[in-house]
């Protein structure tokens, strides 16, 4: 009996889609654990370097360095935009990009020009589409944050700041809050805000510096910025996997609902066909 062939094909195709989304969900779940672990591992370095810098700021209250001094006249701002390379992760990239565009718009309204450093394919494409000035980028970062791939774009931005081509450096990324929640965040990296380093220390002492204080500060600030960016990339990756897991779970559930409704329609059609056929037979027999 050839009833509802279209419906059966449709059920089959939704089932296939469901298989894919379920597989993606499981892959994202296992990757999420790994990315979270990496995010956690990056923390001690950031904490330690912050401590060392706080010690330094404590003992030298009058240090002055371009990285620390705010500039009065901000003409051009560098924004590091961190996004994922791949889609199918819910509203994650859309949220980050909205945050980024809002920030860019409010800066442009003030007459400030913008240089973009795009880490991640999605952000790169979006910035390119809007014909923004992209000065550096790194895409295809994979699932493991690697310092190796970040050093290049970061040093482009640091150099631009040191040479005065940009007057501030911001970063936009997705902060990982928990599995269900990721928040787009934007922060200022340069010039460093001194209050970020303020901590209470019972001792203060004069350091010996090798080779000299200014190169030590420069080295520390560079490494600090790099570690912040590394941490942000790690958070972004964890957010990506979490968002994908949630999105794929929703897709799998939706597919199950669609299959259920389709099956109901199919069965109804089948029963209607059987009833019609029966009544035809009965009517035929009565006529004889």
């Amino acid at each position, binding site marked *: 009996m050839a009833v509802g062939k279209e419906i059966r094909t449709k059920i089959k195709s939704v089932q296939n889609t469901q298989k894919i989304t379920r597989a993606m969900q499981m892959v994202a779940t296992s990757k999420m654990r790994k990315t979270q672990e990496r995010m956690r591992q990056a923390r*001690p370095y950031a904490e330690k370097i912050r*401590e*060392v810098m706080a010690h330094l700021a404590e003992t030298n209250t009058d240090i002055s360095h371009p990285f620390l001094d705010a500039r009065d006249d901000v003409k051009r701002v560098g924004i590091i935009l961190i996004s994922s390379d791949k889609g199918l992760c819910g509203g994650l990239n859309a949220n980050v990009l909205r945050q980024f565009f809002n920030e860019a718009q409010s800066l442009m309204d003030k007459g400030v020009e913008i240089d973009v450093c795009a880490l991640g394919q999605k952000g790169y494409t979006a910035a390119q589409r809007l014909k923004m000035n992209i000065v550096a980028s790194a895409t295809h970062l994979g699932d493991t944050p690697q310092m190796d791939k970040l050093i*290049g774009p970061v040093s482009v931005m640091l*150099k631009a700041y040191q040479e005065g081509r940009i007057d501030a450096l911001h970063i936009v990324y997705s902060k990982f809050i928990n599995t269900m929640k990721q928040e787009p965040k934007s922060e200022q990296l340069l010039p460093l805000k001194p209050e970020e380093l303020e901590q209470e220390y019972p001792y203060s002492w004069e350091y010996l*510096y090798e080779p000299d204080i200014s190169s030590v500060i420069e080295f520390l600030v560079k490494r600090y910025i790099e*570690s912040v960016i590394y941490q942000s990339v790690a958070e972004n990756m964890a957010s990506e996997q979490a968002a994908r897991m949630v999105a794929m779970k929703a897709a799998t559930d939706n597919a199950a609902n669609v299959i259920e409704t389709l099956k109901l329609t199919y069965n109804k059609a089948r029963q209607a066909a059987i009833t019609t056929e029966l009544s035809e037979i009965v009517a035929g027999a009565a006529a004889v």
Partner: protein
Amino acid sequence: MSTMHVEVVSAEAQIYSGEAEFLVAPAEMGEIGIYPRHVPLLTRIKPGPLRIRVAGQAQEVLVVVSGGMMEVQPNAITVLADTAIRGEELDEQRALEAKKAAEAELAKASDDKDVAQARAALKQAIAELHALEYLRKRVH
């Protein structure tokens, strides 16, 4: 004998954490040995082995780092180690590459980058060789 707390961390992971009696590090101005209650010091370190002597252990702990920064306080040492292979020249090449990627012109890595990479990798390899040599000497 008094001890000091030693922590070696890199951006990617925590490498070592524990108490130590004595530590030797490849500082930029030359190798330095540090006992507890050392004068506070901030120094850059070169690629090479960190030797950490732990109380009650005959063997020194050996950690190879590819450069970084070391903070010495009277009772604590923090080593901020680099993980990636670094070098002024190589960083420069990486920066160029990132710029090129932005302009979508990155057909293939330039020869300059290869040379810089090789040179930095060589430095790292030499540091590791030094560490191995040191280990070998200690065994015999």
